[in-house]
């Protein structure tokens, strides 16, 4: 209990100092398209999510995130219409960006690497797999004012499957972050 009180006091005392300086944290939303790669049972779909941002080092930001993807209906295969919805992918994980720090203004390029727990589910086929997957890509943020960044990024997502294979996709995402 005493530790909790001390921690709360520390936060209360240091918060104004943090606010007075360049923002080190951010929270934002993002959305875009997810394009399955070599997945004949899926089509391009939508992706959106939430992320927090924390400046960890002078060049590195950590981004815990929660992402929801819905792939589209597959095209007919050998004349057979499958007629089912694409799979849903839910992921929570951590990205790190090299560059693109929260706050500040101007053009801020960055590279991004991430790991997440991906759950791929298709109600129609009863496919349901959860695995640790990885992503990597690049993008840029533009800070018009220190409190807000917009960013555009693309990243490759690789989700391992049973037996050594993987499901892959490319995400192209736009985001808006509030910095504090």
């Amino acid at each position, binding site marked *: 209990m005493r530790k909790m009180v001390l921690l709360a006091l520390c936060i209360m005392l240091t918060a104004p100092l943090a606010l007075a300086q360049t923002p080190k944290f951010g929270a934002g939303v993002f959305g875009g398209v997810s394009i399955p790669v070599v*997945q*004949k*049972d899926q089509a391009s779909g939508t992706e959106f999510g939430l992320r927090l941002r924390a400046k960890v080092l002078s060049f590195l930001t950590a981004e815990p995130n929660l992402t929801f993807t819905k792939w589209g209906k*597959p095209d007919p295969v050998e004349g057979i219409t499958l007629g089912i919805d694409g799979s849903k992918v839910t992921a929570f994980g951590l990205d790190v960006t090299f560059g693109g720090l929260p706050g500040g203004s101007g053009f801020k390029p960055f590279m991004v690497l991430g790991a997440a727990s991906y759950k791929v589910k298709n109600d129609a086929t009863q496919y349901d797999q959860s695995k640790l997957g990885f992503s990597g890509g690049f*993008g840029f943020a533009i800070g018009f004012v220190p409190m807000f960044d917009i960013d555009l990024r693309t990243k490759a997502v*690789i989700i391992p499957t049973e037996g*050594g294979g*993987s*499901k*892959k996709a490319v995400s192209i995402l736009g985001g808006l972050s509030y910095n504090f």
Partner: protein
Amino acid sequence: MRAFTGKILPVGLVLVSLALGGCLLISGTFVVTESFSFDVSDYLSFQAVDLTENSDWQDHKDNIDMIDAVGFTMTMDNSNGSAVTFNLYVAPYADKQLYNTLIDFQQAVTDGDVYVVIKDLTVPAGTSTVTYAQSLTHLHNLDKLKELTKTGKLHLYATTSLAGSFTVDPGSIVVTVSGSK
């Protein structure tokens, strides 16, 4: 901007290309189909299905990682004049049809040598179709179906509740495969 075009863009493109390109060569998800037909004029009919001749299957035959999904499409012609109850079964592949009579077949089902995958499907008189999506809602013993499908060859048996003209033509098994190369 200079840092982006000078370092981050090319390095990022290389990373994305390597990640996708490398894995693109070794794994993916493919959909394989194989046709079959049944003439169930005497309660029981048999078909052997061989997926191994399919080019996608052949490309990945040594590295079939998992069967993601299995379903069927069937066009059924029921000339009995009344509704018929249809069942579809799967059995391990063998060199020949193992169960030639309904009694032998029912014993094999009881013994667990044959597994029902579409159970008690009511087929009205006339021509009707079962789409891939519809078949998924009727599937039983999905794990066994996937296990046998992963071997690439399997036996299908069909039964009807009435003896009379009843055909499935065309029928297709639709298999979604995660495989490597």
